C-alpha cells in the first residue's frame, strides 16, 4: 500500500480496486448496531483544515472514529501568521504529537505535498486549491460501481467548471485508471488547456452538453461559482444554466440506466434543477454515505490496519 494519498494518480488499478473493495466491507459496519471497528485503536488522526468544509471534515472524522482512532480536529483557518511559516511550524507540531495520519484541506494547490515532506505520518489530501480531492473521486467511483455494477467501459461526462475543480481532476485520473471513458463538458473558458494528455490520454472534450447526454452512463455535475461570471468565464448565470445546466428535459435525454452525480454543495437552479437533484437517478445522498466507507478504507489501508 502507498504511504500518502495526495493525488488520484497515486493509485494504480489494483490499489484503487482494493480501496473500493475494502470500502464495501466497511459499509457493512455502518449497518450494524455498534458502528465501530477496533482496527486503528491507539492511532492518532489529525484533521488539519485550512479551509472550511464541514461535510468533508465530518466525513473523515466519522471514518476515523468508526475505526477507533483518536481524532484531533485542527482548524487553521483564520490564523493570520505568515502562511508559509504556519504550515511548516504546524507540521513540526504534528510531528511532535506523533500524528499517524494527517488529513489536510488547504486553499493552496500542492500544500499536502509540502506537508508530506515535513511529517513522518501518512498525509491524506482532503482537497488542495484547484488541484485534487482524491477521496471524493474514490467515493464517486464507489457510487458508480454500486449503482452500475462496474467501472471499466463506463462513459462518464463531467460537466461544468473543470478548470477550477479538484474533484474533476481526481476523477479524470482515477476513472481513466479504472478503465472508464471520460468526456469533459463546459464552456471553453472553463476547460483547462492541454487537458489531454496532461491528466490522462484519451480524454474527450465537448462544448455541447446535449450531444453528449444520450451516450453516457454517468453525468457528474460540478459546482459553478457565480463569482466566475464577474471574471468573464461566462456572460451570465442564465446563459450558463441554459447551455450547461441539467434540467428535466435534458435529464430525459440520458439513457434509461444513467445516473446523475454532484459532489455538493449544489447551486440549485444554476448547474442543476431541483427536479433533477431530487430524482431517483440522482445519487447525491448516497455519495455522502459512501464517503464515510471510502475514507474508512483509505485510513485503514494507509495505516496498515491492526496488523502494524
Amino acid at each position, binding site marked *: 500500500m502507498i504511504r500518502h494519498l495526495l493525488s488520484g494518480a497515486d493509485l494504480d488499478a489494483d490499489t484503487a480496486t482494493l480501496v473500493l473493495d475494502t470500502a464495501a466491507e466497511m459499509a457493512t459496519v455502518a449497518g450494524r448496531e455498534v458502528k465501530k471497528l477496533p482496527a486503528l485503536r491507539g492511532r492518532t488522526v489529525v484533521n488539519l483544515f485550512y479551509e472550511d468544509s464541514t461535510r468533508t471534515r465530518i466525513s473523515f472524522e466519522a471514518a476515523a472514529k468508526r475505526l477507533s482512532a483518536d481524532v484531533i480536529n485542527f482548524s487553521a483557518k483564520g490564523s493570520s501568521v505568515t502562511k*508559509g511559516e504556519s504550515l511548516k511550524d504546524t507540521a513540526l507540531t504534528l510531528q511532535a504529537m506523533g500524528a499517524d495520519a494527517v488529513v489536510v484541506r488547504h486553499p493552496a494547490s500542492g500544500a499536502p505535498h509540502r506537508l508530506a515532506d515535513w511529517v513522518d505520518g501518512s498525509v491524506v489530501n482532503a482537497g488542495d486549491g484547484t488541484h485534487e480531492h482524491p477521496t471524493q473521486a474514490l467515493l464517486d467511483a464507489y457510487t458508480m460501481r454500486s449503482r452500475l455494477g462496474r467501472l471499466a467501459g463506463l462513459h462518464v461526462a463531467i460537466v461544468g467548471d473543470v478548470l477550477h475543480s479538484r474533484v474533476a481532476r481526481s476523477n479524470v485520473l482515477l476513472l481513466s485508471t479504472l478503465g472508464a471513458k471520460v468526456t469533459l463538458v463546459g464552456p471553453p473558458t472553463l476547460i483547462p488547456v492541454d487537458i489531454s494528455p*496532461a491528466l490522462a490520454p484519451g480524454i474527450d472534450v465537448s462544448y455541447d452538453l446535449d450531444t453528449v447526454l444520450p451516450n453516457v452512463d454517468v453525468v457528474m455535475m460540478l459546482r459553478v461559482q457565480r463569482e466566475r461570471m464577474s471574471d468573464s468565464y461566462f456572460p451570465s448565470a442564465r446563459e450558463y444554466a441554459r447551455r450547461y445546466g441539467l434540467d428535466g428535459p435534458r435529464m430525459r435525454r440520458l439513457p434509461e440506466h444513467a445516473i446523475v452525480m454532484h459532489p455538493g454543495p449544489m447551486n440549485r437552479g444554476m448547474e442543476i434543477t431541483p427536479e433533477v437533484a431530487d430524482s431517483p437517478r440522482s445519487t447525491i445522498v448516497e455519495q455522502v454515505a459512501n464517503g464515510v466507507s471510502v475514507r474508512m478504507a483509505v485510513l485503514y489501508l494507509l495505516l496498515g490496519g491492526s496488523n502494524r
Partner: protein
Amino acid sequence: MTAYLIRNVSPVGGEPTDLLIRDGVVAEVGAGLSADDATVIDATGLVALPGLVDLHTHLREPGREDAETVESGSRAAALGGYTAVCAMANTSPVADTAGVVEQVWRLGREAGLVDVQPIGAVTVGLAGERLAELGAMADSAARVRIFSDDGHCVADPRLMRRALEYVKAFDGVIAQHAEEPRLTEGAQMHEGEVSTRLGLTGWPAVAEEAIIARDVLLAEHVGSRLHVCHVSTAGSVEVLRHAKARGVRVTAEVTPHHLLLTDERAESYDPVFKVNPPLRTAADVDALRAALAEGVIDVIATDHAPHAVEDKECEWAYARPGMLGLETALSIALDVLGPRWDLIAERMSRVPARIAGLTGHGLDPAPGVPANLTLVDPAARRVIEPAELASRSRNTPYARMTLTGRIVATFLRGEPTVLDGKAVK
C-alpha cells in the same frame, strides 16, 4: 599596487600565454614574461575570460538585507566570475531617485568586489503611473543608463513610449519585464500541460510575447533602445528575430535557468523552482538555446533573485518567485553552449558591457586594458551545496547537482577578488 604574473593561461581564441597585470591594467601579453615584483599564478589548463558582466541582478539592499546585501551579492558575483553587475531597482525604497541609486552605487564601491551599476526605476515606486526622474539618475554619481521596473511590466503603452523617447537624451535603454498583467493575474507557473495537472494558475506564453511585440514596434516608431529582460518562450524568440531583421534597436537576455530547466520541475511543488517568468517547456528551452547561439538573444543575464528561507519554504502559491544565479551561471552556460569560449565571452561579458555602457568591462586582455578578468578551470566539477554559497539566501535550483567549470580567480582592475576559488575579502 601588487603585480600579478599569470602563467600559461588560455585567452579566448588563443594559444596559452602569460599575462602581466600591473597598476590595474594588463601590462604585457606574451610567452615567457618575467617580473621580479609580481605574484606568480600558474594558470595551466585555465581559460582567461573578460570579467563577466550581469545585466540583471537583485541585490535586495536597501530593504531586504536579510536576503542579500550589496556586499554579500558582490561576493557571490565575484565568486561567479563577475566583475560588474547591474542592480535592479525593485528595492525598498525603490531605486527611483538619484539618492537611492547613489546609495547603492556607493555601497558597491565600499564592498569593492565588483562594479555595482545601479539600474533606475522607469516609474515612481514601480507603480507604472508616472516617470521617475530618469535624467537626475542619469546625471548622478551612479551615471545610470539602464532603467527598468523589473518585477513589474511597464504595461501602459503611452507611458512606455514616453520612457523610450525620454532616455534618448542620455543614451539610456529601457529594460522591460515583459508581462501583460491582465493575462497573468494569479499566475503561478507556465500555462500548459503541467499547470493543468498541478492545478496551478497558468502564466501563458502570449502574455510575454504580446508585450515584446508591442514594445519592439514602439521602439521602432520612436527610434529608441529597448532591452528585453529574461526572454522565456519560443514565440518571443520569433518576435525578436522579426524585429532585428527590421533593424529595430532591441537587445534581449535569457537566464541560465530558462536555458536548462523546464516547467516539469514544478511537479515537486518545491517553490525553489518558482520564478517569474516561469520555467517553460522543453521546446521553449530548445528555441532559447538556438536563439542564444545565433545572436537573436544577445546575452545571458542571471536574474539572481535571493529570497529568505521563509519566503521559499512554504506552499507554492505563497512563495516569492526567483532563484539564485550568480555563483552558478558560468557552469550552466558551459553546460548549455559547450566550451565555445568566444561565444561565452560575447554573451556574458562583451555584449552586456556594451549594453550597459560599462566601457572598462567586457574587454579581452590586451596591453593597456583594465584588468577585469576571470580565470576558469573548465574541467573542474563541483557539487552545489546551498549552505556553502556566498549569497545570504539559499534558493538555488541546482542544490546537490554536479556542475562543470569552476572560477579559480577573478580580478577587478588588477586586484584579485577571488583566488584559488575563494573570495579574497
